[in-house]
Each structure stands twice: as C-alpha cells, then as structure tokens.
C-alpha cells in the first residue's frame, strides 16, 4: 500500500492524449444526465448523478456492488423510470426504451428461436426495414464480428463469447445513437473476456458509436474507456470522473505501463475508500474452527 513507487499521477497526460481528449470534448454531446436520482421505496439507490458523453466516446461506469450501476444502465435504456432529474439523448428527454439506445445485457438474451442471422435482423424487421435489406445488413454485421459462418446456427450452438458478439451485432444493426453495455463480459472466462475487449475496441474504432459500458473490473474499465465514471455506494453517487491517460490504440501490453498502473492505483483507492462502510464484505469472518485442521499453514 505505502511502497514509494514513483508512479506518475493519473492526471498527467501526454500531449497526444491531451489532444485526443480536446478533440473528444469538442464533439457534440450525445447523452446528458442531469441531477438524476432513483428511489426504490424508501431507499435511495442513485443520488444526483450527472455526466455527459460525447459522440464516439467510450465511457465506463465503475463502482463496487450496490452502487446502482446496473440501475443506472437500465434507466439510460429506459427499462426503469428515474425518480428525479433528466436523461437527455441528443437533447431530447428519454422516456421508455427505444431503438436509439441499444443494449447488451450481462445474461444471454439472444432469442433462442431465431438463428444468429435472424437475431441480428430482429431490430431491423420490427422497425419495418425490408427483409432483403435487413438480411444484407445482418450479414455485414456478422462479417464485422467474424461470425458469418454461424449465420444459420441457433444461439444454443454458440459459446458464451460468441453469443455476446452476436448480441453486440444485434444491438448495433439497429444503428442506435448509443450502445449501453451492462457487464456484458461478466459471465465469460478470463481469456475470452480479454479477446472480447480487444474485439469490442476494434468494432468501436470502425463505426460511429458512443458506448456506455458498465463494469466492476478495474482493468477492463481502464483498457476500454476514454473516461471512467466512478460511483460510490449507498446511495450511488458520482465519486470522480477519470480521464484515462493510456494512449490509443490500446493493446494488452499496456496493462503494465506506468499510466495504466497509476490509473489503476487511483481507481483502487477510490473503490476501496468507498466500499468501506456498510458493505456486505465488511462483516468479519468467523474464525471459529469447526474441525481440527492440524498444523497451521502460516
């Protein structure tokens, strides 16, 4: 904890990174959240949340369990009503779910009765895009995510990572203004998760999409994000908005770079300081031995 490691401050940005942030902030605002609060009965889940995302920004929202980050994603998607405040998409208030905000969920939500291709076509066809055109577009998306060979497979024939790739394509095929991702790689194993992150950045780079990505994994957030919104729990509040100083394009080698480690150290500091309190992890473990264990291991 206290080792005098000479890390640069996470606030130090190289000129290139600073220039990139200047460009980012000069772009139009896509999503604006103002004074947003959410109450479930008597408990306040989210309090006074405010942030903006710019076009083609990759924003990660991070926080310990109980900080309401999933609730926030659901409010942005319109699946949940907020109690106070405003959510503006392109300046217009969000009411209910709509095709302008695509969403990828943590659980697998591909429609099991449709083939991969028809899953990707789903949004287009409910929004009255002609069948031929929808099919052509779906195939293009499948090509982008590298799953064109599985066009006629059913979701249960795919691995977890493939399912989430299709879910991303399904959301993007609808050409939303913003893509909401609620811990989409949470259920995947470490290697698959890593590949998915690289893959997602690749997709994000190629198309005009703004991403709001919810996660509890610090490295995932740093690896993916332009900016990281750190929430603290009980009630969920914005703790800090971090501009990630790690240059792009990102690669797995950067995980050991100074900027990366500095950012991670700062995030750890924030998350740990905030989760100390009434969190469920803070009940001390019972140290009673139920069975004799012989020698101590330490």
């Amino acid at each position, binding site marked *: 904890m206290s080792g005098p490691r000479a890390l640069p401050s996470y606030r130090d940005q190289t000129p290139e990174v600073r220039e990139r942030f200047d460009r980012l902030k000069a772009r139009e605002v896509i999503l604006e959240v103002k004074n947003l609060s959410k109450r479930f009965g008597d408990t306040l889940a989210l309090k006074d949340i405010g942030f903006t995302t710019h076009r083609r920004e990759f924003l990660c929202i991070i926080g310990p369990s109980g900080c309401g980050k999933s609730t926030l994603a659901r409010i942005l998607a319109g699946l949940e009503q907020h109690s106070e405040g405003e959510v503006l998409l392109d300046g217009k208030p969000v009411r*209910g779910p709509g095709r302008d905000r695509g969403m990828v969920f943590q*659980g697998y939500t591909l*429609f099991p009765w449709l083939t991969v291709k028809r899953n990707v076509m789903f949004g287009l066809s409910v929004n009255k895009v002609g069948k031929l055109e929808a099919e052509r577009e779906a195939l293009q998306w499948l090509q982008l995510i590298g799953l064109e060979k599985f066009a006629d497979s059913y979701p249960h024939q795919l691995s977890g990572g493939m399912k989430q790739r299709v879910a991303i394509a399904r959301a993007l095929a609808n050409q939303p203004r913003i893509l909401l991702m609620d811990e989409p790689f949470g259920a995947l194993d470490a290697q698959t998760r890593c590949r998915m992150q690289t893959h997602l950045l690749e997709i994000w780079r190629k198309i005009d999409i703004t991403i709001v990505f919810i996660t509890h994994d610090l490295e995932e957030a740093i690896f993916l994000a332009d900016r990281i919104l750190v929430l603290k729990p009980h009630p969920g509040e914005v703790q800090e908005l971090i501009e990630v100083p790690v240059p792009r394009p990102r690669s797995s080698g950067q995980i050991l770079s100074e900027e990366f480690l500095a950012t991670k150290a700062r995030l750890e500091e924030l998350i740990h300081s905030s989760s100390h309190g009434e969190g469920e992890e803070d009940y001390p473990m019972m140290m009673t031995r139920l069975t004799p264990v012989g020698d101590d291991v330490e």
Partner: protein
Amino acid sequence: MRPPDKRVLTLLSFLLPLAVWSAVSYVPFLWHPQMLISDPGSVDYFQPGMRIDRATFAEEAAQAKQENRALPAGAPANPIYLPAPHEVLRAFYAAFTTKPETRDGVWLHQSLWHSIQVIFWGFVISSAAGVPLGILCGSSRLAGKICEPFVEFFRYLPAPAFGALAVAILGIYDGPKIAIIVIGTFFQQVLIIANTTRKLDYALVEAAQTLGTKGVKLLTRVVIPGILPDLYRDQRILLGWAWTYLIVAELIGTTTGITWFITQQARYQHFANVFAAIFIIGIVGLGSDQILALLGRRLFPWDRATEKTA
C-alpha cells in the same frame, strides 16, 4: 458396467407388469381363488364351465366323497373379471376381425373413432379459448388478476358434476360430452398456460424493447415464439387429461363411443373385450403423445429441453 440401453428399459417397463399378470394368470397356485368346473359329478347345482369358490368346491367334493357319490372335477381358475393375457390378445384381434355379435353392436374401431372425435372437438374448443386467454393472463398483470381467481375456483368444480346441466342445455348426444371435456380441460389450461407465459425470461422482452419493439409486437414477436415449445408441451399434457374425462363424459346422455363398447361387453361378461378396449385407449393415448413429441422436435429445433428427451 455399461448403463443399459434406454430401449431395453422401456421394453422392460412394459414387460414387468405383463410378467406379473401372466404369473397370476398361468401359475395355478398363485391366487386362483375359484374352480372352473369341468365335470359337475354328482353335485346337482354344478355345471360345466361354472366358476365356484375353492372352499365351496372342496366342501362339496368332500361331502360327495363321504357319501360315495361321483366326484366333481375342475381346475383352479381366476374370477371371470381377470382374463389371461392370451385371452385379451385374442379379444383384441377378434374385435377388429369378427362382426359384432348383437344387432345393435358396433365394431371396436367404430366406437373408438367416435370417442376420438369427441376428444378432438372438446380439446379444440377448449384450446381456442384457453390458449389465448392463458397467454393474456400470463402477459398482462391486470388480466391475470381479474381472470385467474375465478378460474382457480372453477377448476375445483368436478367437470362430471355439470353432466345433468349439460344434457339439459345441449341434448343427449355428443354436445354434453364435448362440453364436459371442455369444462374439464379449459380451466386447467388457462392457469397452466398463464404460468408458462410468466416463466418466459423477462430479459428477452427487455432486449426486444431496447431494439425498438413495442405493444402487440412484443407479444407476437417475443412472448409467443418464446413460449411456443413449452406451450406445445403443456398442450400435450392437457390432451392426456382430456382423455381421462372421456369415459365419464361418454356416460352422460346416451352412452356412446368406447364407453358404450366397454359397458356393453361388461354386461355380457366379455371381460377380455373390456380389457382390450381399455388397453386400446392407452395405446391410442400414448401413441398420439409420442407422435406429437416427435413432431415437437421437428417444429422447435432450437428447444434444448426437447433435445434432451430425444
């Protein structure tokens, strides 16, 4: 040890009860509480072909022996209501090959066909109303709250209790029989299908909403296709239940169909025919269910639950 083949086990599950039945029928010292008299001897009320309790037979034989009269002869037999397997098998064959004995008699397959039609219409009418109502109750909280308490109450009313009422309203022919099957199926159907609808993973509905799906399309594009394999399974189970109402339903008004065949044969003590008729209901029931199961696997290739039972 290798786990035994599934087909062998299936065969065994039929062979074991058959073995018990055969043992009771063919092994003379198992049960056989009666004597089938072949020669009445000097006992005046005995007749060849008569069945009499073993104790009575022994008593009469002992008395005849004491008085030095001719002894009655006979073999241990089961009561007439328990025919042996081969007799039932013969009756089964005969039912399809020999003309009915009585003038007003009908062939077994004719009565069976009549029963199948009653079942079919009862089930179709019940489903036409029950499936949509069930889906509505399952997908709309309001509809469920309004509808289900009454349905829940009504399903406890035994369908046959409506027999007299059905006859008064619908006459004595097939109308009341179909009505009983509808009453017996419909209320269960609404509740079961409502429940199946509620079991649909709600995340699928939400996913569809974020893709811009609204209103009725959520029902037609997500809910209905999503529950279809389970709905199909429910319908198969409900069809099985409809069969169980059949016999009672057919007794209402003029007795018809397979029930008429059974009661008629029982009246003439042709119990082999009675068993043949009962078994054929089982065969038709199981057979149709298996065909529907096979069809289900074709219809819903994505359904993993049917894949497992394949």
